[in-house]
C-alpha cells in the first residue's frame, strides 16, 4: 500500500508539473487548488488492488456489460475556468447570487466537474443555506472520484454544515473523513 501511495504521489507530481506546461497560458483560477485538483487516472488503482495478473488472458467476456468505466481524463475547459474566475470575483464582492449564476453556467458547460459543485456548496454555506450546501458538497464528493484534495475539502465543508445544522455526530464523522484524506 505504501509503495502504491508513493507511486501515486510521484505520478501526481509529474502530472502537475505537466499541467504547468499546458497549452494555454491561463492564470489558474483562484477558486480551485491548482495542482492538487489535477485528476490522475493512475490513482484509480489504489482502490482496486489485484493480486493476480489480469491482462495475460484474453477476456472471456467480450461485451462491456457491467464493466467498470475507465476514468476519462478531465481537463478543465478554459470557458469553465473563466466562469469560475468570474464567480470567484463576484463572491469576493459579496455578490453571491451572481456568483452562483456564473457557476450554473459552468455546470451547463461541464456538468460533471466536481470543483464547480464544490464552489456552489461553499457559497450556499456562506449564504446560510446549510442543507443545500450539504447536498451540493455530497454531489461534488461523488463526482470527485479520485480527487482526494477536493474530497477532503468537501468533507470539511460538510462537517461545517452538519455543525450549523446541529448534527454534531455527523459533523465529527465528516471531520474524521476529512482528516483521513490528509
Amino acid at each position, binding site marked *: 500500500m505504501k509503495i502504491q501511495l508513493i507511486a501515486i504521489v510521484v505520478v501526481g507530481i509529474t502530472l502537475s508539473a505537466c499541467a504547468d506546461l499546458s497549452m494555454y497560458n491561463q492564470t489558474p483560477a483562484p477558486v480551485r487548488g491548482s495542482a492538487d485538483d489535477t485528476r490522475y487516472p493512475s490513482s484509480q488503482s489504489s482502490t482496486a488492488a489485484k493480486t493476480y495478473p489480469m491482462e495475460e488472458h484474453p477476456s472471456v467476456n467480450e461485451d462491456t456489460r457491467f464493466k467498470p468505466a475507465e476514468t*476519462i481524463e478531465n481537463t478543465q475547459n478554459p470557458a469553465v475556468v473563466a466562469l469560475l474566475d468570474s464567480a470567484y470575483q463576484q463572491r469576493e464582492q459579496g455578490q453571491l447570487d451572481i456568483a452562483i449564476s456564473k457557476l450554473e453556467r459552468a455546470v*451547463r458547460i461541464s456538468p460533471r466537474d466536481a470543483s464547480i459543485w464544490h464552489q456552489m456548496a461553499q457559497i450556499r454555506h456562506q449564504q446560510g443555506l446549510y442543507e443545500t450546501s450539504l447536498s451540493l458538497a455530497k454531489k461534488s464528493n461523488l463526482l470527485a472520484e479520485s480527487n482526494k484534495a477536493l474530497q477532503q475539502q468537501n468533507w470539511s465543508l460538510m462537517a461545517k454544515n452538519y455543525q450549523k445544522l446541529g448534527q454534531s455526530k455527523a459533523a465529527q464523522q465528516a471531520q474524521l473523513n476529512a482528516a483521513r484524506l490528509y
Partner: protein
Amino acid sequence: MVKPKKSAKSRKTSPRKKTSKQKKTGLWTRFFIKLSILFIVISAIYIVYLDRIVVNQFEGKRWALPAHVYANPVELYQGLAMNTQQFESLLTDLSYQHSRQLTTTGSYYRSGGVYTVKTRPFNFWDGSEVSKTIKVKFNQHGIRAITDKATGKELALLRLDPVKVGSFYPSHKEDRLLVKLEDVPKTLIDGLIAIEDRDFYQHVGVSAKSILRAFWINVKAGQVVQGGSTLTQQLVKNFYLTSERSLWRKIKEALMALLLESHYEKNEILEAYLNEVFLGQDGDRSINGFGMASLFYFNKPLIELKPHHVALLVGLVKGPSYYDPRRSPARAVERRNLVLDEMTRLGVLPERQASIAKGFGVDISPFKQVRSSRFPALLDLVKRQISLDYQEEDIRTEGLNIFSTLDYTIQTTAERLFKKQLESLNKRYGIEKGKLQGAMVITRRESGEIVAIIGDRNPQYSGFNRALDAIRPIGSLVKPAVYLTALSQPSLYNLTSTIDDSAINLKQQSGELWSPQNYDKVEHGQVPLHLALAQSYNLATVRLGMQLKVANVKRTLEKLGVRREIKPYPSLLLGSLALSPFEVAQIYQTLAGEGFYSQLRSIQSVTSSEHAALQRYPLSVQAVVNPSAVYLLNTALQNVMYEGTGRSAYQYLPREYKLAGKTGTTDDLRDSWFAGFSGDYLAVVWLGLDDNKPSKLTGATGALNVWSTVMAAVSKQGVQLTQPEDVEYNWADPSGYRANEFCTNAVQYPFIRGSAPTELSPCVSEVSRTLERASRWFDGLLNGR
C-alpha cells in the same frame, strides 16, 4: 396641478356674472344666470374629471407590457462541438443577417472556416453582454478559437443573445418595445413632425392652422396627404378614447389634448406618442410603437435605422394595414417616397440623402418575431411555474423578461423528429389516421433543467398539453423503484440475487384475485435480479416487491420525487400508478442524477422591464437515496439497453453511449412509455391514444423508437457513472455464485462492499480457489494495517 386650472376658469367667468347681475333683474334673466352657473359648474367639474384621467393615466403605468420568454442563451467557447452548419443555423434562429459590412448588430459574414460576427448587446440577470465584433474559427472538431476583433485577444467564452420563444400578452395583445427619446433617430422625429404635425412644437395641443393647412394640402393633392389632428390629439385618441367617430368625441379629444399639453413637456408627449402609435398587425398581435415596429419590419433596433427605413415607418402611421410593406410593398414604397419628398421640401432631409433613400427597395427583413404560440407546451409550463410567484395580471402587463431553460436547437430538433416518427408509427401500425398522440420531456441530466417539451403530435398546437396533463399508468417504468428498494438493502439483495419468476395470485383490496402474467405469458423460474429488470419480468418483480413490502416501494417512489398520492396496492408493483410524462421525468431525474433529486425547472431567472434582477430559480440538489444503490440500479438499467427490452436503441446510437433506461407498456398496449438517459440528457416519451383505447404499441416499438431517434440527434455524450467508494466489481456466474475471469459465462458486476456472493461457483478451479483464498488473506492483511 389640477387646482390652478379650475381657478383660471372661474376667474374668467366671474366678472361676466357680476355685470349681468347689475343690469337686469328679470325672472328670465335670473333663470338664465342660474342655468349658466350650473353649466359652468358642470363643465368645470367635467374638466377636472378629464384632467384627472389625463394625469392619472399618463403618470401611472402607461402601457401594459407583455412578458417575454427567452430560450437559454447559447454560449460559444473553444472546444464546443458545433460545426459550421449548426453555427449558421443558430445565427439564423437568432435572425442574424448576412452582411459583409457588418453595418448592424446582429450581422455576420463567413470566409472559409472563419465567421466574423457582430453580436447584439443583451441584458441578462447576472449582467449585460455588450456588442462585440468577433471571429469564430472552426476545425473538424468544432470551435477552435474565438477572438475579439477589436483587441485581437482570444475570448474564453461568448454568450450570445437569446432567442425569444414567446410572450404573455395583455388581453388586447399589444406588443411594444419602449424607447426613450434619445434612442430615436433624429430623422424619424423630423419626418414624423413633417408629415403628421408640422407645428407640433408651437401649438397648445390643438391647432386651427394645421386643420386649415391639412384641408388645403389635401384639396390641392386630390388625396389625403395630411391629417388635421395634432400629434397630441392622436395620442389622446389612442391613449384615452375609443375609436368611435363623433363630434362629442372630437371635442373631448381636443379638451384632453389641451389638458395634456398644460401638464407636460412637448418631448414627454412626443415620447409617449412614439411608443403608443399602432404600426402593424401580426396575426392577433398588434405592433405598437416605433421600437417594436423597427424590429418587426427591419429586425434592427430603432437607432440603427437609415432614412429609407425611417420614412417607411413614418408613412405607416397613416394606415399600417393599407401600407403594409410585406403585403403591399409597392404602395409602401410610394408612400415612403412621398414622406421623403415632404421632408426635403421642409428642409429636414438633404436632397441628396433623400434621393439615395429613394433608390432602395422596400428593404424589409424576412425575419418576423416569433409568434406567442410557437412553443405552446413550454409556455404553458413556464406560466404554471411562474404563477407560483407572480400574479396573472403582473405576468401579462409588467414587461417581465423570463429566461427559460429551453434549448432552442434541441426543442426544434426534437419537435421535427417527434412529429415525423409519430406520423410514421401511426401509419405503420394501422392506427386511425392522426389518432396516435404523444408527449416528450427532455432535461439536462445533472440539473433537471427542461431543455425541450412537447405536448402534442403536432408540437405547435396549443391545447391539451400531454406532457403535463396526460396522467397515464406508467407500467414497467415503476420497476426501477422496486429494484432500487431491494438494492438499498445490500445485506439481502445484490444484482445477482435470484428471484422466482413464477405465477403468483394475490387477493386485491376488493377481494378479487389478481393473477399477473409476464408479457410473453411464460414463467422463467429462478432469474437473477438484473435479468428480471432487463427483461421486465412481471412475476419476478411482483414476488420481489411483495418480499420488500409495497409500502417500502411506495416510499422509494416518494423519495425519487413522486408528489402525487400513491396507493400501496400490489398492482403498484406493475405500474398501476398513473403519472404525467413530466412527473415520470422527475423520478428518472433522481436516477440520472445518481441519487440526487433536482426539481425540474423551466425558468432560470426573471428580470424587470428595466432589466433589474428580480428572481432566480437556482439549481439545487438533494441527496435522497443511497448513491451506491443507484449506481447498481443504473448499471442494471444500462443492461436493459444492452440486452434487454431497450436494445433497439443501439440501432440509432453508438454502443459507447452506455445508455440507461426502461420501457413501459400497459395492459392491452394502451400506453407506450420510455424513460432513459444518455451522458448529457434525460428524456421521457409517452405515446397512446387520447380515448385510452389500445394503441398497438409497446414501450419498445413505440416510445423507444421516438426516444432513440431524438436522442441520436441531440445527445453528444455517453453515460459516465461515478463509482461510489463502497462499490466494487466482482465476478459472478449466472446463478449468482462468486466466479473469476476464467469462468465462461461469468460477468463482472458491481456490489456494495460486503454484499458480493462468497460462495464459489463450481466453475472456479482448485488452483484458482487457492489463489483466491491467498489473495483474500493478503487483502485482509493489507486492510488490517
